[in-house]
């Protein structure tokens, strides 16, 4: 759909990439895996004049576990994340969330940085990363800063990334004792979520983040705080679910009306919190949409 010459720049180092980004600012559309950008281009929603590819930048594909922390490079693919032994062992809910995105063909291409920078309300990773209290690393030629997912994603396809910054990676703190990601699809197995619930229990703390129901991932710390220290039994789970459902202002799309999303949010939050109480059998393959460890591919 594009017209006219589009310049394509593919620097080999992060410094070069940052320099180009700083020079061209928002005129340079950053290309990561291209799965989302390709759709936008094909449909003519955007007509960029300059494309800045991070595909050749050394070091951005790394996934490493260091000092108990998980570091995901911006160019690590979904498939890299879901298959990485360290992620599967230490952060199984994150591995699971990346493993249920779209199809394997898409996951081989789509990246960690791309999905976060797109800030699409119906993506899986933001909610699960938020529930793990992940920090997104934004770098400019002069500085680096870290922001939470809740700061990064401001609205529909809108982030806090400045025009001279690039999203270079994600840092995830040591995993909570138990975390789950439930992807509720109202349609095909390859569809985006209608309601996505990530829940984590770290010590006494409960974190619940609901994705795909509003412009940004939804978390209500006051609801979670009221549940802190209580056993995540059915009654507590129902209460948290009900309160989340009351508080969200759901959107409507082809995957469900606002009223439907509110109702499913109550059910899925309840199920996620209940699942926190369950101990996943070691090495067992978690059922689709359920929490826990992913089995062998």
């Amino acid at each position: 759909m594009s017209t006219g010459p589009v310049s394509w720049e593919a620097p080999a180092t992060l410094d070069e990439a940052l320099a180009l980004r700083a020079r061209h600012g928002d005129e340079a559309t950053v290309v990561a895996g291209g799965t989302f950008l390709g759709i936008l281009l094909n449909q003519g929603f955007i007509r960029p004049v300059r494309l800045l590819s991070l595909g050749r930048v050394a070091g951005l594909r790394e996934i490493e576990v260091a000092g108990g922390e998980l570091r995901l490079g911006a160019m690590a693919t979904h498939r890299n994340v879901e298959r990485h032994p360290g992620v599967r062992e230490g952060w199984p809910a994150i591995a699971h969330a990346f493993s249920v995105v779209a199809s394997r063909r898409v996951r081989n291409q789509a990246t960690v940085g791309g999905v976060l920078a797109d800030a699409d309300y119906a993506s899986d990773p933001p909610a699960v990363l938020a529930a793990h209290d992940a920090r997104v690393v934004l770098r400019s030629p002069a500085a680096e800063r870290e922001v939470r997912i809740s700061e990064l994603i401001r609205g529909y396809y809108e982030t806090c990334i400045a025009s001279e910054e690039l999203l270079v990676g994600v840092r995830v703190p040591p995993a909570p004792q138990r975390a789950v990601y439930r992807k509720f699809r109202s349609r095909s197995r390859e569809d985006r979520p209608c309601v996505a619930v990530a829940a984590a229990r770290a010590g006494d703390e409960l974190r619940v983040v609901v994705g795909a129901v509003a412009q940004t991932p939804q978390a209500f710390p006051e609801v979670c705080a009221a549940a802190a220290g209580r056993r995540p039994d059915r009654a507590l789970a129902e209460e948290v679910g009900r309160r989340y459902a009351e508080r969200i202002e759901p959107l409507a799309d082809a995957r469900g009306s606002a009223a439907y999303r509110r109702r499913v949010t109550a059910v899925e939050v309840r199920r996620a919190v209940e699942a926190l109480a369950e101990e996943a059998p070691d090495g067992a393959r978690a059922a689709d949409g359920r929490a826990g460890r992913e089995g062998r591919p």
Partner: protein
Amino acid sequence: MIAVGVDPRVTGAQRYSVDVEREGMLHAAFVRSPHAHAEVREVDASAVPAECVVLVPEDVAGLGPCGCQARDQHVLAGPARYAGDVVAAVAAPTREAARAAARLVEVDYEERPAVFDAVAAVAPGAPLLHADAAASAQDAVSIGVRPLAGTNVCHRFQIHHGDVAAGFAEADVVVEEAFRTAGAAHAPMEPHAALAEWEDGRLTVWTGTQTPFNTRTDLAGLFGLAEEDVRIVAPPMGGSFGAKTFVRTEAVVAALARKAGRPVKVVLDRTEEFVTLNRHPATIRVRIGARRDGTLVAKELDCWVDTGAYADCGPGVATKLGYAGVGPYRIPHVRVDSLAVYTNLPPNGAYRGYGAMQSVWASERTMDVLADRLGVSPLELRRRNLLHDGDRFATGEVMHDVQFERCLQAAADAVGYEDDPRGKGLCVLLKGMQTPSRAAIVVERTPVGFLLRSAGCEMGQGVRQSLRLQGAALLDCEPGQIEVPDPDTDTTPYDTRTTSSRTTHMMGRALAEAVADLRSNGAGRGFGEIVNEGGLDPDTGQGVASTHWHQGAAAARVAVDEETGKVTIRDLHAAVYAGRVVHREGAELQNEGSMVMGLGTAMFEALDVGEGQIANANLSDYNLPALGDLPARFTHELVEREGAEVHGLGETALPPVPAAIGNALYSLGLDVRELPITAERVLDAVDGREGAGKAAA
């Protein structure tokens, strides 16, 4: 390594319509109306670069109307009758340049009121789309079209069989239900593609089409040419499912090529596919009466079939939908009133199943409601009323080679229906083949074997392989010795079209005659032709609906998350009557493909038409089924009979899938009336069951 038998579709050797090129050709892009209904006041192309050729309304003012069943289409639309209607076109040296130039064409529109629902479109005061569309006389095998003057009804098909008032008076139980189905996209992998070239006043069009001869007739009428001065070549298609039937892009590229004096090619993009041809949404009201013992006595169907902005083959769809909705049952008193209705949506046309899915959904869901009221098993109710050999259908014709009971029983057995019907549903259907129709074929000797000249179009269904296999059996040679070139109206004899699962059946019979001719005449060339007479009187529905019946059944087993309405289909089975199987692997793939499309229709697929703009015109938002959506048990069978003739089976397993799934839900007390069966609709049905206090079983 020798690549014998490697599928050219896999190696990339297969050339499709999108691959056709001619020297000096230009590429076309279309200027489409953003409005659902608007007068085109002025087209200003002054900003378009001089290297481009622009087709504007004045260029086509002298060209006649076209349309396979109603002549209601022009090369360029004026007024625009749907968002996406082509109001101008540009040809340029590259596709990109053409698209850029098309954006520079300024069109001044004056918006008109629009209507997006077929029931609303027949209400008094609805905006009218076509003041004076004439029935097409061009299609030699067209049905008698019955437009209602001064309305948006472009065709009314009726069946009057027996006396329904008397029939209902005999009924102990009467059920009346209304159902709806959504519009759907065919979504073939290859988009529409066509290339037109003029030489000495003669027009040649290479186009991915299922209807080369119908397209030739329409283009000849449009440009005022003799049919022999139009040549249609039909390369293989990368899928069609009915999307590539009748004139689609061909008229615009032909007019552009004429103005440019050079060949012009168009390849649509995915978004354009969603505004080119879709499946008819329908609203269907069913009223059915039975005696206490389950004997059906009367049935009424009222159908509103949304054909969009142009009739296309909507009259044919409304007709087939009308009689398929009667179902494969003996019912002494039947009334059907089926309307093909214009709305300001993209045109709807042929789609695998051709109307049967819509009315089978309504009719077969109603059968289970009736069974529930009568307190009999849905399987038993069907068995008690199924048509058998020698029975008379509502059209008055006597049924032959009838296998409904075998298909139904096979489907029921596949899910253990008689052991425990809970969570399980059945559907049985009858579907007709294009009648009347003609098929002809030429067989010629070549140095290595034989060559078959046939207008049977390859769209992935395997028509060439089925002809080779039938030819090899008749000619006593290897299939590899038989060459089957692309259909070409200059060199292949007339065939009605490659639709309605008719080609293996009809062309196979013609081939037997051609081989006999070859053997007897000693000339190295044989000709065979089959002519099927028949057709229905559109005012009474009496006559011969189909010379050959497509018969099938499906069974489903489901599980429901009643807190979210999410349905898991555990088993899905289809049983399709095949008569004699020609190409087993191909036939099995047809069943599977039909079932997958049926699954999409049942669960996911719906065009979001809102106020006339298709909001999900892409394959990200428009939800097609993926491999992961197939049930754990996804099975099918070909029901065969010794000595039977070849039966068409390219579509039969699609229409019964939605109703089988809907009836499985109904067995759990979940009554869903509208397709697709979204999780949200199922949750509403859960609420409805609790509200109604209806017994689950």
